[in-house]
């Protein structure tokens, strides 16, 4: 049985929306980061779905690059979060607000 393209894209859109909501409503920097990863993986799902639909590998190559980017972003992100935590002892973004006029 072949899963129709619309179902794959619908699932991908749902996952993407969950990720967006997570970014908007969570307050912990690490959790926000995980939500962003969810968004990126939703994109990967959509790319693989389209790739199979068109029988082309373009989308799959794109997925590889997105995965690498996600890893690089996590590395840089965690490094920044650790540096911040060392100075401030918190990763709650409501408390990270030194710059409000």
């Amino acid at each position: 049985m072949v899963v129709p393209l619309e179902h794959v894209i619908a699932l991908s859109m749902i996952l993407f929306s969950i990720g967006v909501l997570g970014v908007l409503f969570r307050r912990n920097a690490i959790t926000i980061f995980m939500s962003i990863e969810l968004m990126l993986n939703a994109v990967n799902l959509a790319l693989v779905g389209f790739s199979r639909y068109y029988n082309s590998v373009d989308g799959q190559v794109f997925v590889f690059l997105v995965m690498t980017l996600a890893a690089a972003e996590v590395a840089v992100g965690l490094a920044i979060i650790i540096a911040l935590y060392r100075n401030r002892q918190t990763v709650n973004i409501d408390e990270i607000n030194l710059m409000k006029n």
Partner: protein
Amino acid sequence: MDISQFFTSADLFGIAPEIILTVTALSVLTLEMLHVSRPGIILMVAALGLFLAGALAINTSGDEQILFGGMLVLNRFSVFFDFLYITIGLLTLIFSQGYLEKRGSASRGEYPALILFAIIGMMLMTRANDLVIVFLGLELLSLSLYILVGFLRHDQLSNESGLKYLLLGAFATGFFLFGAALTYGAAGTTNYNGIVTAITNNTILSDTYLFLGIGLLLIGFAFKVALVPFHMWSPDVYQGAPTTVTGFLCTAPKAAGFGALIILFNRAFVDIHYQWQDIFWILSAMTMTIGNISALIQHNVKRMLAFSSVSHAGFLIMGILVLNETSISAVLFYLVVYSVVNLGAFAIVSAAEQEERGLNLKDYRGLAAQHPWLSAAMTIFMLSLAGFPPTAGFVAKFGLFSAAVSQGYIGLVIIAVLNTLISIYYYLRLVVNMYMQKEESTLILSYKMLAIVFVGLIAIMMIILGITPGYLLEIVTEAASTVA
């Protein structure tokens, strides 16, 4: 299988500037590993690499070249942007001398290396003819910038702005990528030429995917170049970042973002461009108005310049709304003037910056008495940003407005002119503080001779360009003619 169609020596020669910059960045890191203690040497090597890359970029100018099976396109437009990035990079390196040490960070080879990586990313963005390459360039740029913004590890403001930039930047990346995925789904290819073919032959899988895709791509770009309502990160990030990085951040990536946006909408989505004009209109009006009004109430110079750069993005998007040869050349001219002037202004701010001081507008009271030349240069920069007649800023704004008027966007131009009038207030507030106040300035400026020479050169250039803009106008018209 024949792969010679994908890789030829012409391809490798075409990306020679990128290769040179990569090698330079790695050499800079090697020098740091070998504990070459004088930071001047590291900056010199980086500058040398930039010069070399620039020289190689010249060689490739001429006819349009299509590289790597249609992934990259080299033409006058991309060469123009290559030069803009290299100039911004060189100026940033010159203005950065001694700044990190002043802020208590050990001078490290990572700083110039990250700037070089960011430049490679931007070059890829404006050379791209494929969504994959734009994505790669954008991310190479963004990742370097996240680290640069949070470079002062022991500074809480720098940490905070690094985290904010990272979270919102990664969020924007998500939107950009989903847009790219849906566009790929609609057209069956990520190549710009392929997308055009799919649109003109009407072989689009579904209009929903395509329009959702373009919308999400636009949101991604809007985040990266700070268009209202996606600009919330910019004042905080600009304020907390090391000042020399702020100068880099508000110029080069913005140029790259607009360059990539022009190519994307002018090459890939050109046939459906008219369906996006209303959205660009609203974005432009909102961005310039909200940016300007927010800038009025700022007391911190960096925040003020941040909101001012938001409003400039609103002016620039007007040129993309019109999207013909005149308006694109006006955008390019505007980008040059805006970038160079902002770098100069941030260079002076970074010289004035001390512990807890030098960032407030009040700190600049009476500065003209102690530093008449620097104050004069700062005045020229502010007048140029506001768009006063004898400066290059006037020519830039005039070109952009007349391009919009000639296509009938009278309403938007009226809003833009009103905004220009509002902006005079906050630009001149700094000038008034420097000249009109009787108080003795207590600011101690620390700068390197070379940096001051370049600040002076920029100021003189802005006046000369304001009087005789012909030469630069010729260059930008030629560059614009290759895409329009």
